[in-house]
Every structure is written in C-alpha cells, then in structure tokens.
C-alpha cells in the first residue's frame, strides 16, 4: 500500500466526486493515515467544473493540493482531465472516464470539444488510463456508480484492500444500492 498520496477527483457538478472521496477517505482513516479532504458546495455544484481533493500520509497540513503535486487525477468526464492537468506530478497518473458532457458553448460552436485529449496526453508521455466508466455503470443498471468503477481502479493502483472498501460500501449505502456499488467497485478493481 502506498504510504502517502495526493488525489484530485474532478468532474462536472452532480457526478458523485464527493461520495467517491468520502469512501476513499473513510478507508484511509481505518488504515490509520492522517487524511485531509476538501470539497466544494453551492453555486459551483450546478453543472459546473468541480474538484474534490484528498491528501493522506503520516501527517498532512494543507487540505489543498498544489499544482504539479497530484499523484492521481481521477476524472469523471473526459475533457475535465485536461483542465486540471497542471496539478499532476511528474510521472503521476490520470484515470479518466471517456464520458463526454458537452457544455453549451461547444453545442453552439463557440468552443471545440477536445475529442482526442486522452490520445494527445498519451502521445506526450502522460500516464493515462481511460475507461468507459459511464457505459459500464449503465450496463450494471445505474449510471451513478461510474464513480465506484473509477474508485476501484484507483484503489487497486494504491494497493488498497478491496475487502475494506466493500465493507465500507455496505456501511455507507442503503441496502438497495449496495449490490450495484459493490459490482461497480469489483469491476473497477478488475480493470
């Protein structure tokens, strides 16, 4: 298990970055790490670009991740990974959903959606893992569990035990939502 890391969850308001960060933080606390997490509420949540930050280690002071120091960027929407890329540490990892949410400016042709952003990052030497988290979640029966697919991938990379996360899912989710979240976590872990 990795001893310390800065993890930036990014996406579009309403995509579930906070619940993914909450679950991860709960697991890290159980493992005895010092954890700081920062989230954004209010106006920014209404369909805008959002980020949630998790830092853990033996002792953490600031809840905010500095540019160039994120070990992971977990992006719930394809183009959002690019917006936050300057936060990535050298040799850091981007785990990005390939799900596209096109803002109005793109629909009206005032801006261009960066379709090839993942490929460009890969060509330029960024370490990027792209996953069709949204369609996988829909296949599982609930688009909202895309966040657990992404969290599963991250957890495996961190060396975080799946059993612990599974137990926390059973603790934090209503019975009706447990199975689909467990399946999504399992799927992420297997990717």
């Amino acid at each position, binding site marked *: 298990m990795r001893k310390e890391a800065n993890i930036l969850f990014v996406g*579009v*308001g*309403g995509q579930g970055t906070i619940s993914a960060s909450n679950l991860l*933080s*709960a697991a890290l*606390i159980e493992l005895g790490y*010092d*954890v*700081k*997490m*920062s*989230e*954004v*509420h*209010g*106006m*920014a*949540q*209404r*369909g*805008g*670009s959002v980020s949630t930050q998790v830092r853990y280690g033996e002792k953490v*002071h*600031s*809840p*905010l991740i*500095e*540019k*160039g120091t994120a070990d992971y960027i977990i992006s719930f929407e394809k*183009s*959002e990974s*690019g*917006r936050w*890329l*300057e936060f*990535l540490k*050298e040799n850091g990892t981007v785990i990005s959903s390939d799900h*596209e*949410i*096109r*803002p*109005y*400016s*793109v*629909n*009206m042709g005032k*801006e*261009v*959606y*960066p379709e*090839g*952003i993942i490929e*460009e*990052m890969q060509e*330029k*030497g*960024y370490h990027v893992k792209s996953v069709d988290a949204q369609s996988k979640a*829909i296949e599982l029966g609930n*688009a909202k569990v895309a966040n657990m697919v992404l969290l599963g991938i991250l957890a495996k990379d961190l060396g975080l035990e799946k059993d612990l996360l599974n137990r926390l899912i059973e603790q934090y989710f209503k019975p009706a939502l447990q199975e689909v979240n467990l399946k999504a976590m399992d799927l992420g872990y297997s990717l």
Partner: protein
Amino acid sequence: MKSLMTGNEALARGAYEAGAHFASAYPGTPSTEILENLAKYKEVYSEWAPNEKVGMEAASGASIMGARALTTMKHVGLNVAADPFFTMAYIGVNGGLVIINADDPGMHSSQNEQDNRYYALHAKVPMLEPSDSEECRIFVKKAYEISEEFDTPVLIRTTTRVNHSKSLVNLEDRKEVAIREYKKDKLKNVMTPGHAQRRHPVVEERLVSLRHFNNASSLNIVEKNTKKLGIVTSGISYAYAKEVFGENASYLKLGMTFPLPTELILEFTRDMEEILVIEENEPYLEKEIKALGIVCRGRDVLPICGELNPETIREAFLGAEKKEMIPMESKSPTRPPVLCAGCPHRGFFNALKTDRDIIASGDIGCYTLGAMDPINVTDTVICMGASISAGTGMQKVLDIQGNTKKKVFSFIGDSTFFHSGITGLVNSIYNKIPVVTVIMDNRTTGMTGHQENPGTGKTLMGEEAGDINIPMLVRSLGIKDENIKIINPYYQDKAKEVVKEAKAATEPFVIITQEPCALLKDVQILRRNSYVEIDQEKCRKCKTCVRTGCPAIYIKDGSVFIDREMCNGCTLCYQVCPFDAIEKKGDLVNA
C-alpha cells in the same frame, strides 16, 4: 473515538458537546451544513429561520432566557443580522451566545469577498478562528465558556476551506448544562439610550479583560523552531504556512483574533530576525501588529483578492520556480454552472427570454443563473431579497420617464421571498409601483442543497410545520385577485399569455410559478422513467432545443441528441421544436 469530519460537522458536534440548547439560522454556503448536522442531535432544538436577522434575534432571545444558544450564517448573512449583533454586544448574555460566521474567500458561492474579521472589531465582540475540524469542535466549547464568563456574544469566524475540508476529530460526550435562571434586568436588557450609555463603558472594560485573558489563553499556540523566521497566522492560513515552511519557521498561531493578545505577540516577535504575517484577504492582523510598532510584512507580496493556497504563499515568499508541464494542444472548454436538466426555472425564463422590453431584476438562488448564456434574461442581482425592492426603484424611474414600452419584472425564489422579499412587495403595493413580481416557488431552498423553508410544511428537525401559503400572503398584502396568476412554468403557451398580461398591467402584479425542483428526491423518483428523444429523421438541426440551454441536450458529429440519463421529461424542448422532431417517451409526467 476519532471521526473524519468537515469543519461544519465538527462545529455542530462542538455545540452538541457544549450542551447547547437552541440554534436558529438561515442556510448559506459555506455555513449551511452546521445546522443540518446539529439537527441530527435531538438534544438540541434546531430551526431554520426565515433570515439571518431572525436567526440572530431568536438565538439572542434564547440566550436572554438562560439557554446556550447558537446562530450560524455565511459572511453576507452577518450584514443582514448586523443590527441585533451590534446591540447584543451591549446587552451581553445570560446563557452563552455563539455566532458562527463563514467567510468565502475566492467567492466559490458568494457575491462579494468581505472579510468579516472586521465585524468583531467593529461590534467589539471576541472572535475565535479555528484552523481545522478538531479546532472547530473545541473552539465552540471554548466560545461558550468565554461567552458566559465575560457576559458577551462570541463570534467564531471560519472560511470555506475550514467549513468544507475534512480532518480527524476526537469525539467527546455531551455535557448537559442547566438553563440559567431568568431575572428581569431592564438596565441590561432594554437598550434605551439611557441604558446603552451605561452599557458602553462596560463593553470597553470587557475588551480590556478579554485581551488580558487572550494573552494567557491556550487558544493561541506558539511553536518555536528557529529565531530566523517568525510567522504570525490564523485559521486555514496556518495549515498552508506549515505546508510551505514546515520546521524552517517559528509560528504564532492565533486562535483568538479579537481582541488580539498584544503581549503575546510582542513576546513572540521580540527575538525573531524576520516576521511574516500570513492571512487571507484583508491585512487585518498585519495592520494591528504594525500598530504595536513591530516590523513585519506579508501583504506586500500576498494577494488581497481571492483565496490563499500553499502555492501562492510559496511563490510570494520563496519565489519558487514553477515547473512547466508538457504543453497540450487540446483545450478543455469553459464550463460555468448551469440550471439543471428539467429545472422549472428554465421553463419560465424561456417564455420571456426573447422579449427585450422586459428589464429583469434578479435575486440570490439557482435562478441567478437566469443571467447566464443562453437565457440572458437577468439585468441585475445585488443581494438576498433585492429583486423586488430594486425592481420598484427601476420601475419608478421608467414611470418618471413616461416609458410604457419597458417593464420591470422581479424574479425571486420561495425561500428568498420569505427571507427578505416580502418587504419589497409591500413597497410596491404601498407606493403603487406597477412592478411585476415573479415568485418562483420550487418548494425548497435549492442552491444550498434543499433545505426546508416556511413554505415547505416541514421543519429542520423533520417535523410538520406551519406552512405559509404564498398566494394567500400576497393577496392579504393587497395584490388584487385579477393581478395574481399561478402557473406551471413548464407550459410555454400559458406562461407567455401570463407574461403578456403582466406586461400590460398598470398595478403591482404577481406571477407565482409552482413546480418542485427537479433534484428533489420525490421528483426524481416520480420522473425516473420520464424522458424525451430526438427522431433523427425529422430533426433539421435548427438548434432551437439546444438554445433552451438544457445540459441534457448536446451535439455530436453534427447531430442533436438528448442524454437519457440526464433528461427527466420536462418537455420544454418538445414544446419549442418547430419540426415535431422530439418524441415523448416512458411514462411522461408532464404530458
């Protein structure tokens, strides 16, 4: 027991542990979740007040009767509550009175960046500033002790990153505190000029005692690592400073920042070679420290606008070189906040957005987004409740000019109407100003995350409430029956007809749109299998539906699609499509 908590959860926990009896507040980011969490502890009576002034006054009353009382608000909420706040500083307390004020540096969800530390100075009320969640819990308990010992309200000032960051908290048991005896004391509790003249010197003497107390208080922490560099800081700035300077500096972390512990500051700074003051926004500490004759700096390099973060501090003081990332050609598109898919506000805005003769006076809530592309309806937004009152001023100027072509419409949500919109409506009726008031009733306080309000029929603690009937209230104030229209904002034909009638009205006119927020759980369940789809063969790609600004509608490879996961079948796009290319699907609720 240890628990990972946001600052807001920990502030609530602190009030619970302190034996608080009573809490009253109005929601406002980033303070909202304090009372939401406190309401989970049934030992404390918690309520939503219609506005911050009412919350402050209700808490003041509870304190006078001997209870430990709490009120919370965002920074601009203290402007609303400033009147009772300043006078309670003279009256003092019976049971402890704690006011939690959450500032929003960086304006994540606010209309200005005021630094409310100056309120403590101005009202002569002691102020505590926690740095993390554990301090949030502890400082609330300390605040009650200070409040009762010194007979004063106490201000706890936080910032967004303290309220909305999580860190570990030690949980302790609640300590029950008896409600103190109430005794009539007119000299102390009735602020006539004669009584207030006697209270003012008491307030001044209290500040001297508080300063003396603060010099020896454990709320302030001195960390001595070196004599080369001393940093004076408070709140979240302490966490950032520690991140940047670590053991290479000594720290005076101030937990109580008014009245300042001047002797402690003099002692700490005396043998330091260099002194930095690290604080967000206004140079509040720096000015006070300089006034003590101490040479220090900070504001010369730190920005006054926006949030601090470790990076800004690093660059300002250490000139750390920026690491360049490998440049990318792909640019991420701008993504400002938008009204949600199926939002009822979009329906009504859509019905009048092409009418350039309407001047729209907006307000604080999700419908502030009526100012954004592609709705572009709203002309002005000032503060909570200003839509109707500002609207009366705007309409009166049109009347003075004899301009009958233009008409002012004021847009206000249900919760904001109860907050401070009613008095604006009273002004329009009293002074006979024919402004059109649109009360957008979505049965909740939307922007802050669905809090109950006086119109929803439920209290903060989940009990049945006296719900105020908006149409009856409006009628009782004196709006004539024929000038009140109640509509469902999704239906465009009816909405347009009502807008036309309102525009022609020569008396104050009220439109009430009634449709619950699309994000409310009940609505989501009701509309789960409710959606529309585009028939690609019929679609002529005219983009009329796209121009509603609904985030569920998108264009890919030249074709228009509707995201099935986002759409909840409000049918606005179905209604505006000139080619009947949009089909209703599922068991559509708004058929």
